């Protein structure tokens, strides 16, 4: 499949339950998961067999342009070597107002990224970089 936004993420962005430039947004490598558009929380992913293998710090430089383009600084996640294919999960780790991470059952899913250079990846042990697209759509673009 192609990179995609979770359905409830669109709802959350429009209703203010997800705030990209206030909340802590993180990226994680995930394996053993098949994208389900209706999934809403990180716990939905793990409940469906997904295993998170390395989560980044809160993304920095997260910016939403007037053209609806979402971008952030490149980041890294510390992974454990695995022969299984991994994709990238983007999620709101904190409450909508920011702060510490909340439970997985309250962490809002945003996007599932399985397409791009070296994706899916069988990561090694150590820091695995996530370099966001520098093209027109950056991470993703609305509209």
């Amino acid at each position, binding site marked *: 499949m*192609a*990179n*995609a*936004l979770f359905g409830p993420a*669109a709802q959350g962005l429009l209703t203010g339950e997800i705030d990209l430039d206030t909340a802590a947004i993180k990226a994680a490598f995930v394996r053993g998961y098949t994208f389900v558009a209706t999934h809403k929380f990180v716990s939905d992913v793990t409940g469906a067999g997904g295993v998170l293998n390395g989560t980044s710090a809160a993304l920095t430089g997260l910016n939403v342009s007037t053209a609806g383009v979402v971008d952030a600084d490149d980041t890294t996640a510390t992974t454990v*070597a*695995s*022969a*299984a294919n991994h994709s*990238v999960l983007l999620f709101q780790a904190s409450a909508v107002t920011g702060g510490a991470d909340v439970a997985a059952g309250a962490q809002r899913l945003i996007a599932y*990224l399985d*397409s*791009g*250079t*070296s*994706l899916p*990846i*069988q*990561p*090694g*042990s*150590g*820091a*695995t*970089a*996530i*370099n*966001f*697209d520098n*093209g*027109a*759509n*950056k*991470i*993703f*673009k*609305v*509209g």
Partner: protein
Amino acid sequence: MSRLFNGGVSADSITFAVGNAPPDEGPITMAALVKPATATNWLGWVMAGIAGGANIWSMLVFNQKWFIERDFSAGSGPFTTDWYWAVVTKASGSTLPRWHFKNVTTGGAWSHTDAANTVTDGTGPITSLRVGNDSAGSTGDAWHGNIAACATWTSALADLAVEAACTLAASDLAAAAPGWMVRLNQANVATPVTDDTGGGGDQTAISGTSVDAAEPLGWSYALATSVSPTGFAVPVTFGSPTIVTPAAPVATVHLTGSWNGLADIARLNAQEAEQERRDGPRACPDCGEPLVRNQRTGVLGCTFDGWTFSGSTPLFDAFSL
């Protein structure tokens, strides 16, 4: 993590489709990241290209020395129970194989040494490829120890190219564009081993083997150390709004100066004329002083200049009768 082959006890092996592996033993490069189980005298194949039930090309250990197929010399190389890269290259025809070794456990330097005897290419093309054993597939021919990765090229890599390909990163091995390459880091032997080149040299059969926690210190199985997700666009789609207009305007106000505005002025003038005709004038036409009706005569007049209204005032007259 790596795959353990229990040669001498069981006939462990993994068989693969040919993919883009070398058809015969020249030109060829065979590379394997291995850890022998014991530094004793035993016989075991790391890998073999097979056709017609015979080995066409292979890399093996016999009595603590390394050989390739049809090498009847005294053998080559160091032999320890450390993890190390064992690589052999050979040009086409009857030529000397060249051995390349690097101990990755101790971090020693590369050695590059020609074998003592020339070796022929054999008659290919191969029809299958086997890791951990040879065409016979017997317990006595199986590899004793761990294997982390294997690769082959249809060319004889130069010494520096061998060093660049065989590092502590599987990504370097893949970047050297082998014709066939496998990593044995599957967490379960039931997971088939696939050809990392995408050339189709995937696992077709397996006999025994086990997953072992041992792997070379600092070795990374990752084919990449970074990912770059492709940006994507989320389209915004709209419904079609319906605008309902009121049944009739609540009020119409015309702009001054418009034709409708002039019509309004004409209507107002007519109303004022009608009022004056009915009630008489309200102000003196000479000085604008409000007219006062004489209580005795009933005549409208100006108390300032004495002007009097001589016309009739129907409404007043009617009430005066």
